[in-house]
């Protein structure tokens, strides 16, 4: 799950029998005990801000530094900030700031503000790092201020002012977007936002100004608690004030430009619902979910559903709908399936890849195959193998060449796909799957398959 915990002397995360545990080292025993006894932990649990944990005695980690071992509430799917849409990242940022404000009330402070310390569960962000809390010393500044700006404020500002796709810079910058880079990429008009001007532009200049100044910290840097609270409140106002840019994308209005009739749309929903009931999965990964219309067939049946899409507008709309309807079983996520999230960090072992994190009972690939095969030249063999490694069951929609959407894809390029047809599709997918059912969608040339992985 999180192999970066070796960087933290307070403790580390480890996996045993498929479950996550966290060792607390002697180094942080005082902070941990104060966190638990001060009432802060209880308060954060009551507010739903942090995952619950229990202390366990039967699992002993590393003996040398061992103090205690805790078993946190297990979150099945770990997601990363570069997979969150704008509002999800914003919610995670506000959660981090709210936790810091609560911590200060109990004379504690967050010693880091990593976006990776937040996960999504039951439709809300939740903090997962129990060892991020340390005692607040009167007059000390917020140690995690710079990290907060790099992990949250910089990507949010770039998404809001420059381009909504720029959260993907977080893949290349595992410890957040450097402020000097954010400053270069932000347009001049961003300087009219006082918060962005101060926390990114001036903050970056100040970093540069003092990076070579050895005398700067000779005198202890002091900051009153009121000033610290005002800083956090201001960051909260700045983050809350950032808006999703007004843009139109290819997929944002996909359903209003579709070639389905109302009847075939409903029939497609009915077939998918029927397939899902037959396989009765605990988890579903909907690949190419758009705004999640079909994902909700699964999540409305209380099946944990991950709704992936490449389109920021579609995922943003899906996320806002999830929030509005207070849905617990769907999580919209950004993902480019032709270039899924890689394993990143030192030794490629700090943040796990897409395919190692998102194993599920079933995969839905609706109106997706033509994009993978025709737009991205991916042979059926490769897509079938990819899907079969993710889940046992596959609900897949075959979109034939005669379909108007495929015709659009072929209108600007030479048709070099002689094998893109129903027969070849079935022949290749049959190498990996047993075809359990096949149904045509009326008033359309599309076919919906239910398949089960072989072996």
């Amino acid at each position, binding site marked *: 799950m999180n192999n970066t915990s070796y960087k933290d002397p307070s403790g580390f995360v480890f996996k045993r029998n498929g479950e996550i545990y966290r060792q607390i080292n002697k180094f942080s025993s005082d902070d941990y005990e104060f966190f638990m006894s001060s009432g802060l932990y209880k308060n954060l649990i009551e507010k739903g801000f942090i995952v619950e944990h229990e202390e366990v005695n039967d699992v002993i980690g590393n003996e040398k530094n061992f103090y205690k071992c805790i078993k946190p509430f297990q979150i099945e799917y770990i997601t990363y900030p570069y997979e969150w849409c704008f509002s999800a990242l914003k919610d995670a940022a506000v959660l981090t700031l709210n936790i810091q404000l609560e911590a200060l009330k109990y004379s504690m402070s967050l010693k880091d503000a990593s976006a990776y310390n937040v996960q999504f569960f039951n439709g809300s962000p939740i903090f997962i790092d129990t060892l991020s809390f340390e005692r607040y010393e009167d007059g000390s500044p917020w140690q995690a201020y710079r990290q907060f700006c790099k992990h949250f404020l910089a990507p949010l500002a770039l998404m809001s002012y420059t381009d909504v796709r720029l959260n993907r810079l977080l893949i290349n910058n595992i410890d957040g977007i450097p402020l000097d880079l954010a400053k270069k990429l932000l347009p001049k008009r961003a300087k009219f936002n006082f918060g962005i001007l101060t926390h990114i532009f001036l*903050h970056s*200049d100040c970093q540069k100004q*003092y990076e070579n*100044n050895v005398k700067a910290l000779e005198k202890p840097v002091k900051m009153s608690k009121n000033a610290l609270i*005002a800083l956090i409140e201001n960051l909260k106002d700045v983050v809350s004030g950032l808006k999703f840019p007004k843009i139109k994308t290819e997929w944002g209005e996909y359903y209003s430009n579709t070639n389905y009739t109302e009847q075939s749309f409903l029939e497609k929903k009915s077939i998918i619902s029927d397939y899902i009931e037959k396989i009765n999965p605990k988890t579903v990964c909907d690949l190419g979910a758009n705004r999640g219309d079909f994902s909700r067939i699964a999540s409305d049946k209380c099946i944990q559903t991950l709704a992936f899409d490449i389109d920021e507008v579609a995922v943003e709309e899906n996320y806002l709908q999830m929030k509005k309807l207070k849905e617990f079983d769907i999580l919209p996520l950004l993902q480019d399936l032709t270039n899924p999230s890689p394993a990143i960090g030192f030794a490629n072992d700090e943040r796990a890849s897409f395919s190692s994190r998102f194993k599920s009972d079933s995969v839905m690939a609706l109106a997706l195959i033509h994009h993978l095969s025709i737009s991205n030249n991916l042979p059926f063999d490769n897509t079938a193998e990819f899907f079969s490694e993710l889940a046992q069951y596959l609900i897949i929609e075959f979109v034939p060449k005669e379909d108007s959407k495929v015709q659009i894809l072929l209108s600007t390029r030479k048709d070099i796909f002689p094998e893109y047809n129903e027969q070849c599709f079935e022949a290749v997918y049959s190498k990996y799957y047993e075809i359990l059912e096949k149904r045509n969608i009326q008033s359309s040339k599309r076919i919906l398959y239910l398949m089960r992985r072989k072996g």
Partner: protein
Amino acid sequence: MRKFLNILVIVFIVTVFFTNDEAKAYINPGSGSYIFQTVIGGILSILYFFKKIFISVINLFKPKNKTTKSESVNE
């Protein structure tokens, strides 16, 4: 009024930070952040003090049961 305050803050920050010519040796990239937040925190605490007074005065004239903008997403 708000614009005036913003300009005042910016002038202050520029005066504090960018008239400093000392450049000796590498410390670490976080030292600038430490110093920056102490200054900006001080300024913001004054602004937020007046903001709180302003909001409480405004609230006197508002009907009850309305939430302020700062009570945001996760609360």
